[in-house]
């Protein structure tokens, strides 16, 4: 070790601060106002107590106060939110393609995984802090445990939690999705900080297969359909990509004028994902690089090859899913919209939710997400079809 053992870190490019000075001032003002209001309220309360005591002593008859009822809530549409209390405080929630199984990472304790389905609700805690990434129609769950460098992928299958095997030489693996056959996709971080798309066939958890790419280019897999088609990206300047179960593979061209991207969801004849995708120049601590805005989303018709850009909203976050009829669920932390070529339909927020986030969608239109109120996080379900 050299004299300054951290020389290598001092050379590391530190990303720019994203703290906005004006936002700090706005928050500071709000806090000052709140503190003043609390002080005033405290004083007011004290005065009220004194006045109340005097009034009580005088025993004056008072008019009966008119009861104040709750403000009528806006009418709940057919796509209304239904709480899922059986999942407990929820950090993240996903749903299978049919909408029967819902899996959540709890936001308490060691963050056990809770799975709710036709057989009841079960909790899995053999490996703590698994962030669920997907669940299939048999209740098989996949997820990742984040570590200091990246993540380790796990599958919870038949009540057993198994660490997914790494391809030879890989430093770690991260899972993204599982289909109804039980096949799991994700990526492996290889030496030299390159990544390769991986599939684990059901039950062969220790034998990952690298998905073929032109010239062995790096790649990542994000979604897998019931029939085994896999979507993802290929290349350091990522291009959307589709692997078919017959062993063939092909790029999915992004819309004109919106180069680069990836396909992250697949359902029926459709795929969707971000395009106009430029990676940040500074990697995150895990060696990956996030996209830089402005990216947008696109939907591919896998049967006809048609690709349509989705310009429905100023997306900063992403999609929560794709339905089998081609409807795309557009989500950010404030709004959720169902997009089709015919137009958009807003999804109502859970009642009294401060912030909310749609985190998953089944092919048949069951959406799941979380409502955030301070430190409280609760799971919700929407039946939109």
């Amino acid at each position, binding site marked *: 070790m050299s004299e300054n053992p951290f020389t290598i870190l001092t050379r590391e490019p530190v990303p720019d601060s994203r703290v906005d000075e004006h936002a700090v001032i706005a928050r500071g003002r709000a806090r000052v106002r709140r503190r003043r209001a609390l002080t005033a309220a405290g004083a007011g309360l004290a005065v009220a107590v004194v006045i109340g005591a005097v009034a009580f002593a005088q025993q004056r008859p008072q008019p009966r106060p008119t009861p104040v009822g709750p403000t009528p809530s806006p009418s709940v549409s057919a796509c209304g939110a239904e709480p899922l209390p059986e999942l407990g405080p929820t950090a993240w929630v996903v749903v299978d393609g049919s909408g029967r199984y819902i899996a959540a990472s709890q936001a308490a304790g060691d963050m056990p995984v809770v799975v709710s389905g036709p057989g009841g609700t079960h909790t899995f805690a053999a490996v703590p802090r698994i962030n669920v990434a997907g669940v299939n129609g048999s209740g098989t769950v996949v997820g990742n445990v984040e570590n200091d460098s990246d993540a380790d992928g796990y599958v919870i299958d038949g009540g057993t939690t198994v660490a997914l095997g790494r391809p030879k030489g890989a430093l770690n693996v991260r899972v993204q999705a599982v289909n109804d056959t039980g096949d799991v996709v994700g990526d492996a971080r290889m030496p030299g900080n390159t990544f390769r798309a991986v599939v684990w066939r059901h039950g062969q958890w220790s034998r990952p297969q690298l998905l073929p790419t032109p010239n062995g280019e790096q790649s990542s897999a994000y979604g897998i359909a019931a029939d085994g088609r896999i979507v993802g990206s290929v290349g350091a300047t990522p291009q959307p990509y589709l692997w078919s179960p017959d062993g063939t593979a092909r790029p999915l061209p992004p819309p004109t004028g919106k180069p680069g991207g990836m396909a992250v969801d697949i359902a029926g004849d459709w795929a969707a994902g971000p395009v106009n995708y430029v990676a940040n120049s500074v*990697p995150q601590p895990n060696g990956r*690089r996030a996209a830089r805005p402005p990216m947008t989303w696109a939907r591919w018709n896998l049967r006809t090859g048609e690709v349509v850009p989705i310009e429905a909203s100023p997306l900063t976050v992403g999609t929560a899913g794709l339905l089998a009829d081609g409807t795309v669920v557009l989500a950010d932390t404030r709004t959720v919209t169902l997009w089709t070529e015919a137009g958009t339909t807003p999804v109502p927020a859970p009642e009294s939710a401060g912030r909310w986030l749609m985190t998953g969608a089944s092919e048949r239109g069951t959406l799941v997400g979380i409502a955030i109120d301070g430190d409280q996080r609760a799971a919700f379900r929407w039946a939109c079809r």
Partner: protein
Amino acid sequence: MRPDREEAFLQYVTSRKQRLHRVAYHLLGDRDRADDAVQHTLTVLYQRWSRMHEVANLDGYVHTMVVHECLRDRRRWLARVHLRAAPPDVPVAAADPEIEQRMLLRAALRELPDRQRTVLVLRFLCDLPVLEVADLLGLAEGTVKAHTAKGLDALRRRLDTATTRSLA
């Protein structure tokens, strides 16, 4: 706050935020958490700004606030929910060949106890002398030196183990 004071606050924050972010980033190893820690620190600073003329070493004071906020963040982190509301990230080869070594070192650093890690970061990454670190953390100089020696020793052992494991 009076407009002139608010203007002074704005100028101060603009000129110092990247430096504070660097400290927080090295302590927490995460851009988002570093942003959170700096934002929280500066928001609290705004509330106290009218009294700041009484502080002899304002930079040192704010530096201490950020370090303490980062230590609090680390304790809170285990109970915090990870919101992954981010676009899917793309795996690309980093042009920087040192990235894996940095990851190993950062991972080893994060495994150290809070005090040792903080002392090492402040001394070697923020380049602060022992005396200043002692002042900042409210420790005796000897204690800072002891944390430094123990931290370096622990780090060396962890890195040796990690290297052996990766070669196995």
